[in-house]
């Protein structure tokens, strides 16, 4: 009965929301802010990828907040799971192909990850996407050899310093008399790898942080799987 009510209510709500959303002018958004940003972003941030200039420039503090959320989730997960480390050594190791494949893929994925991070201001992608690939690179060997342990110490070091450097870059701008997180070192060669001032640095920080965060989260989950 409750289930049926729930279903009906959810359906009703969906219908209502739809009827509201259908009042929107799809495909022709007002783009008040959007088009302004499109017009100014190249000059103000030097990034060709306008999404990047939004993520790291115009809405950089959102990104900082989001990094913090990821960090908070990782710390919380550590708090929840970290009390009793169950050794995962009892689990069977992956097969030969999986292990070899994992080891083989590791450098490749690292490369791709960093590539995506460094080209974040030029092409689709960036710190988040690259960071996820980095995390996957670390995670893959873990899947292949469940007994292997990630080095949590260094992961948390990367976590901490990458996050801190994001903020420190922002504070550096303040020291120079600019606003917090204001992009610096604006140059004029749009579209080059070395361009867009501090944005690639920020993206590097983001990428490292996301990678470390996800890797540590995943490894925690895998390591505590065995029930006592």
């Amino acid at each position: 009965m409750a289930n049926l009510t729930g279903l009906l209510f959810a359906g009703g709500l969906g219908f209502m929301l739809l009827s509201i959303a259908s009042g929107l002018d799809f495909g022709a958004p007002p783009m008040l802010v959007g088009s302004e940003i499109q017009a100014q972003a190249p000059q103000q941030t030097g990034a060709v990828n306008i999404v990047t200039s939004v993520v790291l420039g115009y809405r950089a503090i959102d990104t900082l907040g989001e990094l913090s959320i990821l960090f908070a989730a990782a710390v919380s997960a550590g708090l929840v799971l970290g009390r009793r480390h169950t050794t995962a050594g009892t689990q069977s190791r992956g097969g030969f192909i999986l292990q070899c494949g994992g080891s083989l893929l590791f450098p490749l994925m690292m490369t791709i990850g960093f590539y995506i991070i460094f080209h974040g201001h030029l092409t689709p992608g960036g710190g988040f996407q690259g960071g996820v690939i980095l995390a996957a690179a670390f995670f893959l060997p873990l899947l292949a050899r469940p007994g292997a342990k990630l080095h949590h110490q260094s992961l948390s070091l990367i976590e901490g310093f990458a996050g801190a450097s994001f903020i420190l870059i922002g504070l550096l701008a303040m020291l120079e008399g600019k606003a917090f997180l204001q992009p610096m070192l604006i140059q004029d060669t749009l579209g080059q790898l070395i361009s867009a001032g501090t944005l690639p640095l920020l993206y590097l920080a983001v990428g490292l942080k996301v990678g470390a965060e996800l890797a540590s989260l995943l490894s925690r989950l895998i390591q505590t799987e065995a029930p006592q």
Partner: protein
Amino acid sequence: MTSAVTPELILYITAIGLITIGLAGVVMSSHLFRMVLALVIAEAGANLMLVLAGYRWDAVAPILTSLAEPAAMVDPVPQALVLTAIVIGVGIQALAVSILIRIHQRYATLDRREAAERMDAEIAATLGVPRDISQEEPLGERPLPPLPADRANMRGDSP
């Protein structure tokens, strides 16, 4: 609603449909892990809704390809927003899963009702109060205390 189903309607139906499925899933499932999954679905719907907000017909991704004559580009802001929203969602899901693992270890069940029951019992036990809420006397004396029978006469039980 008599007009043909337009593409935008399909997109909106997808987004809102995902939200609806998620909501219904959260309400209806009796398993905590399924609730988390339903939440993930609902989040996906909301994210889709967000990204739809910036869509333009006949426009390209917001990346400058040639400086000379910028083509019409879709709104970059929702894309940035959705990037943020997705990562937020991932964080929350990861945390949810780690808590789920713990609950499963402690209670050996992920049934929503059972877990709630046991939580209730545990809270009551920790706080040292009786648990049942229906048959107990209220806490302490009532603000308007009933008169004990032996003293009723003395303290005046009429008007």
